[in-house]
């Protein structure tokens, strides 16, 4: 079963996304800030990360930059999942190294398709 790491500092949103991703048939790991996320990446090596951008301390963009410069983490797909939906926000996310970009509020079906696109094996049956 593929592992998805969900990074979000908002408890309600974390709960929602966790529920959705679990329902897609993935194994879910969560983190509420950059430090926990880094620890989880090291211990469980997820197949993809759903990355909130606005985080306390190190934000999602900076965290992505760090992951993408490390040899053993750079191949993990990072999908920005953010409420920053103004002009230029997508470009900023992609420039930081995100492989994909989705805005909140999330559409469950789109979320499932995007994850499936970045996770090679073990995806749930569509």
């Amino acid at each position: 079963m593929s592992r998805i790491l969900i990074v979000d500092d908002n408890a309600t949103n974390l709960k929602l996304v966790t529920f959705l991703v679990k329902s897609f048939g993935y194994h879910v790991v969560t983190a509420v800030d950059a430090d926990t996320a880094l620890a989880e990446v090291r211990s469980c090596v997820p197949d993809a990360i759903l990355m909130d951008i606005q985080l306390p301390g190190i934000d999602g963009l900076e965290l992505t930059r760090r992951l993408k410069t490390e040899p053993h983490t750079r191949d993990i797909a990072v999908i920005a999942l953010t409420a920053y939906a103004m002009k230029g926000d997508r470009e900023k996310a992609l420039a930081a190294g995100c492989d994909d970009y989705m805005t909140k509020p999330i559409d469950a079906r789109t979320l499932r398709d995007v994850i499936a696109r970045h996770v090679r094996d073990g995806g749930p049956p569509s």
Partner: protein
Amino acid sequence: MITDWMIPGFGGLQAVELGRKHELSCIVISGTPNEDEAVAALRAGALDFLSKDRPMRFVPAIERALRESTERRARLDAERDLRTSEERYRSAFELAPEALVTYDLAARHVLDANRAAQRLFRVTPAELRSLTLTKMSAPRQADGRDSAVVARELGDRLAGGVDVAPFEWLLVDSTGEQIPAELHVVRLAGHDGRLIRCAIVDLRERRKLEQVRQRTIELELQNRRIVEANRLKSEFLANMSHELRTPLNAIIGFSELLHSGAVSADSSEHDEFLGDILSSGRHLLQLINDVLDLAKVEAGKLDFRPEPVELAKLVGEIVAITRTTAATKRITVETEVDPSLTGIVLDPSRFKQVAYNFLSNALKFTPEAGRVSIRITPRGTDQLLLEVEDTGVGIAPADLGRLFIEFQQLEAGTAKRHQGTGLGLALSRRLVEAQGGTVGVKSTLGAGSTFHAILPRVAAGGARVVRRAQTARNGERTILIVEDDERDRDAVASTLAQVGYGFEVARTGADAIARCKERVFDAVTLDLLLPDMSGFDVLESLRVGGWLRDTPVIVVTIVPDMKSTAGFSVSGVLQKPLDRDALLIALERAGVRPEPRSGA
């Protein structure tokens, strides 16, 4: 010239007179010399009267005559040179582009003045001599000093042989127009030291250029502020979009789950998700209300409905709203309402809004197991003081000034963790000011913060012009802020409010003068570029009029030109953008401290 005394048809005396007329040295010789003739010849100017019988005397006499002639010629040349030089000097004096005046200190009037001076003072050469220093000076100098007094001191120093460095002086011409000028004074040698010469540099043109230059800088700054305001608005919009999407994500996402039947109606998750939808919906509503209130308050359309209230009851309601948040973080909330506070009339919902903003803010920034106190105490006889103290993270001094300003959410990483629109405190400030009060904060990094609001015990009703900051009266040191730029005004106001000064605001020079006539301020901060007149004009009319005789004035300006303020007695000159500490230090130095006057 050597002439015989006895010449037929032409006397020796006539010859001598003729020779003298042509500046010649004359020697008279005579065959029959007698004393009377000798006396007559010498009287007529002859150099010598010799007997023809004594030719050996001729040689020394001729030598003497030649010597005398040379000397006389040299003297004549010197006299001619002097005359030319004087003429040259005279024309240089007359035609000099600068006004030059020779003044008699003892007689106290002008002795001589050149054409430029005549033009400057608009007088005829004949009127010149009637000019006295008093007539040539404005009654009072720019700093309010009596011109006659200062001039007398200056005259005494000059008469006493002391040199005076160039200085600025407010002159006045015969039509009464004031001429700011720079005077260069030298004492003239001789004349018992009573004569001085003064070169006058008319500063009007220079002042105009300075004003243009300052206006240009002002406009550039204004432009920069507009660009900055625009950037802040865009940022605010992006923030708003983010803050609206976040609860909507939960609302739409969970509703979809429940609606699609993915979560069965009898599961515990069903209930939990409904609760999440509800609280997200409430959060969204709060956000929208804040934005709308802010828009209203900005437009001056906010209504207040004052009614008799019981403060303890209102405080209890606010604490009840935040009970869950406090309990989750195990924060103790203490309340204290002074029982002597009775007969309070204010808008309960607006009061609760402010107190709630302070309290929820304190809860957000206080770590687990901390303490938050909410206190209401009397302030003077007609005000009350609301304080919310926390044991939170505290706020860096540099950030204090931005707390109450719209769109100025602190960028600190920890602050971002706490959801907010950057509106709560700004809105609170607007609400309090609209009711005639002030807000402020004191904070120690790592130890906690205390937010406060001072409100009248009996509020006036109806919609108010909210931008008018109100007077805090009870013994509080009150500063008049004269400033037309809103951001600069906010900077000064928030700085003053934080440390406990009261303030009033004037946006124009006329407004400032009117306010000073109404009441006495403890100090004035003065912008030099006001829409209707210059800050100096304001200062001058207040000082001269006696409205502001001893009040410390702190000039806050874009270009701190010490020289241009040199003539005015000001307590300090500060540069924009304002350095908060510098302002507080300047006030402190002027002896205006935030604590109430004794006996108040």
